[in-house]
């Protein structure tokens, strides 16, 4: 008798507790989840509507009658001494934009290193900002599948943010649709890429070659053989992980759009394609002949790859070139006779193929509007983007106060005054996290001026030629750069299998690359089958269906 009582006591305790928990949660979840299902309908503002009728939008150019609060996310990189949600620039934004339109601009810090988790916690607690941003499409698709993004109206954006729309309207129309819903809007990305492959020029010349001679993969490998014989060092290697354009140099040209859509992916490696086979065979050859870092698979972070180059064990190193990079100084400290050059684009390309590259999409941030954001706040956001797209405002945010933070030099470029430590001091990355909502980098109208500015930003002192070469090769390779394909439908099998397939890819390719050359064909065939069975076949099938429907860009 007593036993049963105790059991019932325990169970009822658990139930009471869960009910209590449910109640307290329901108070906060009830209202939003009700409006959530309504949101999608009431998004069309009643009365003034976004049906494209002219004059259908309310005019708020004199401000909102009642104060509207918008919550803007901003990356928190924990820069020393910088309060990311309250500083000179947030106050300036409030003064110049917020006060003018009767809007309160609140900044919500999102930790850069943990952003998805941050967003998820905030969303679960219904405290997420009005904009949900991310740099990668797959994650944004995941957000969409979670139901946290609301559909938007392009006419609404065009109405309240004409300048912004003029800059990005095409991009939004091209890329912003998923499952037939208009969800995403973007920030601009200037056409620039400062990724560079550095090579030890002194090593190249020591074996009697010149950097300009490296016009094909075959010649490159010859040089590596010479390096090995001279006891200089090997090619820098690294773990190919979360990188899905590793085999572009081995693809046929020109590219068929459907082939591209099927095999190029942002989350899954195309292990079974011919290009991968060629790439892998080359890697296998380099490995077995001691031409590449034997422990390349241990180099899974940039610092480890850098370490080998700095120590003088490897002769190449790829990374983003910035004016304050430490790789040059560090390499010189350990190898005083080192000289540097940029690897020409054809060096990694087998004879007859082209140096294909991944064309970045014309956008930086991919953004969506929080499903809980009401209409007025959404409109305020468009107006905010419009305000930030004005060149004067943008320039101020990017550079600060003229005379204090910077001076304009004879080329028309803003030269940063590094010693300035006054009130309007910029954040450590030039406030990028604030203006990245409209553009990804600094852009001068005049292309010449822009080029000069880029070289200034990218090249360490005394090594301007590296940036020059980088730009020259970039322009040369322009015709061979193609952007990734984007599906306008969610591809469920990709999200289902991508984590596992990526692990499998790494396991398989390393195993094959490090096996003896005569076993390559057999091992690769087996591995292809394993990969297909593990879910890749399903993905290909599903993607093919979508392609046949034509739902891709």
């Amino acid at each position, binding site marked *: 008798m007593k036993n049963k009582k105790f059991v019932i006591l325990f169970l009822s305790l658990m139930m009471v507790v869960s009910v209590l928990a449910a109640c307290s949660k329901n108070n*906060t979840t009830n209202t939003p989840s009700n409006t959530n299902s309504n949101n999608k309908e009431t998004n069309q503002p009643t009365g003034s509507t976004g049906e494209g009728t002219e004059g259908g939008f309310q005019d708020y150019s004199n401000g909102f009658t009642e104060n509207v609060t918008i919550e803007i996310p901003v990356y928190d990189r*924990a820069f020393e001494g910088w309060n990311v949600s309250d500083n000179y620039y947030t106050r300036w934004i409030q003064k110049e934009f917020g006060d003018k339109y009767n809007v309160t601009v609140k900044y919500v810090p999102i930790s850069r290193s943990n952003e998805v*988790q941050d967003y998820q916690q905030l969303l*679960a607690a219904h405290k997420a900002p009005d904009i949900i941003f991310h740099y990668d499409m797959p994650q944004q698709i995941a957000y969409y599948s979670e139901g946290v993004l609301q559909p938007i109206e392009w006419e609404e954006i065009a109405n309240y943010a004409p300048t912004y729309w003029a800059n990005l309207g095409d991009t939004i129309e091209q890329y912003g649709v998923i499952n037939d819903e208009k969800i995403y809007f973007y920030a601009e990305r200037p056409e620039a890429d400062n990724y560079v492959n550095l090579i030890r020029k002194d090593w190249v010349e020591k074996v009697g070659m010149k950097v300009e001679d490296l016009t094909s993969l075959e010649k490159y490998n010859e040089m590596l053989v010479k390096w090995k014989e001279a006891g200089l060092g090997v090619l820098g290697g690294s773990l190919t992980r979360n990188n899905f354009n590793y085999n572009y140099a081995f693809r046929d040209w020109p590219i068929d759009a459907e082939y591209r859509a099927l095999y190029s992916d942002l989350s899954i490696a195309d292990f079974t394609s011919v290009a991968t086979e060629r790439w892998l065979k080359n890697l296998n050859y380099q490995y077995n002949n001691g031409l590449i870092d034997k422990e390349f698979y241990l180099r899974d972070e940039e610092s480890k790859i850098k*370490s080998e180059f700095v*120590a003088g064990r490897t002769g190449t190193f790829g990374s*983003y070139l*910035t004016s304050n990079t430490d790789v040059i100084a560090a390499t010189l400290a350990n190898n005083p006779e080192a000289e540097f050059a940029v690897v020409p684009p054809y060096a990694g390309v087998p004879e007859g193929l082209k140096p294909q590259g991944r064309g970045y999409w014309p956008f930086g941030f991919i953004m969506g509007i929080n499903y809980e954001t009401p209409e007025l706040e959404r409109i305020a956001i468009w107006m905010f983007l419009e305000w930030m797209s004005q060149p004067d405002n943008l320039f101020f945010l990017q550079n600060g106060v003229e005379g204090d933070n910077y001076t304009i030099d004879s080329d028309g470029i803003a030269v940063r005054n590094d010693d300035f430590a006054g009130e309007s001091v910029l954040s*450590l990355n030039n406030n*990028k996290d604030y203006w990245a909502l409209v553009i990804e980098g600094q852009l001068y109208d005049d292309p010449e001026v822009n080029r000069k500015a880029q070289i200034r930003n990218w090249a360490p002192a005394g090594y301007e030629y590296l940036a020059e070469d980088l730009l020259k090769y970039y322009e040369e390779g322009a015709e061979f750069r193609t952007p990734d394909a984007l599906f306008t439908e969610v591809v469920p099998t990709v999200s289902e299998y991508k984590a596992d397939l990526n692990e499998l890819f790494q396991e398989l390719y390393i195993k094959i690359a490090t096996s003896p050359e005569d076993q390559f064909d057999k091992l690769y065939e087996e591995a292809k089958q394993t990969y297909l069975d593990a879910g890749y076949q399903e993905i290909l099938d599903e993607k093919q269906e979508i392609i046949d429907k034509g739902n891709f860009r």
Partner: protein
Amino acid sequence: MKASNNLTTVKGMKRYDAWDVVINIVVALASLACLLPLIHILAKSLSKDAYVLANKVLLWPMGFTFDAYSKVFADASIIRSLGVSVFITITFTILGLIVTICAAYPLSRKQLKGRSFITFIFVFTLIFSGGIIPEYMLINSLGLLDTLWSLILPPAFSAFNFLIMRSAIYSSIPVSLEESARIDGAGHFRVLFNIVLPLSKPIIATLALFYAVGRWNTYQDALFYIKQSIDLRPLQLKLYYMVVTASESFQLESTNVQLTNPDVLKAACVIFATLPIIIVYPFIQKYFVNGIMLGAVKE
């Protein structure tokens, strides 16, 4: 009576034999294996970036420099973070001990009704957990976000520590002692304060150490709960952010981000983490002395 270790003879003379040598050597080797990596890290933290990058530093700094430390201290808010960490560590330790003792003592009394049941619930919560999102939502509903209490209250009760303390009370406090006190009319509170606590000094010291070290080094919860009030960031969180910032590679940034080699920073972080404990531990060690308490009470 000498209360140090069990081989002391009544006469106070120590005898050494071959085993002593062996034991000392074995333990010394183990200690060395534990010390050397720390020395390596210390050396790295005092070395020039370029050599650390090239992995050349072993046990002695190369290109001796205090750069990493000066970068850490250049940020004035580090001192504040230090203060925050000290505060929450001390508060947390005291609170944790109180809560643990309040659980361990009653549940060590065999005559308590519902003893197994309550223990079961505690152990249950050790094994099952709701997950980070529900925990975040809870802290949010309680209004504890961006306050130091979010770092002090939730982890205060540790079932693990509770079990250890309970088993220590079992084994170190004979029932006879308690019974004679009860016969003399002492209530449970009296027994707790006058008998159990004094006799449990070693275990209390141990748990104090566990609580303190745990709180000092953990930053994962602060990562989620302390967002807007950057003044309240504990030390380890600040250091973690510094390492992360140093490890980023910037694309298209027209930056003036001062990149410090993350490895050197990481090394400095470790030194920061271990120093306080090295300072505090010797004070705790004096409680690990054999039987001194038992003897004293008997008198």
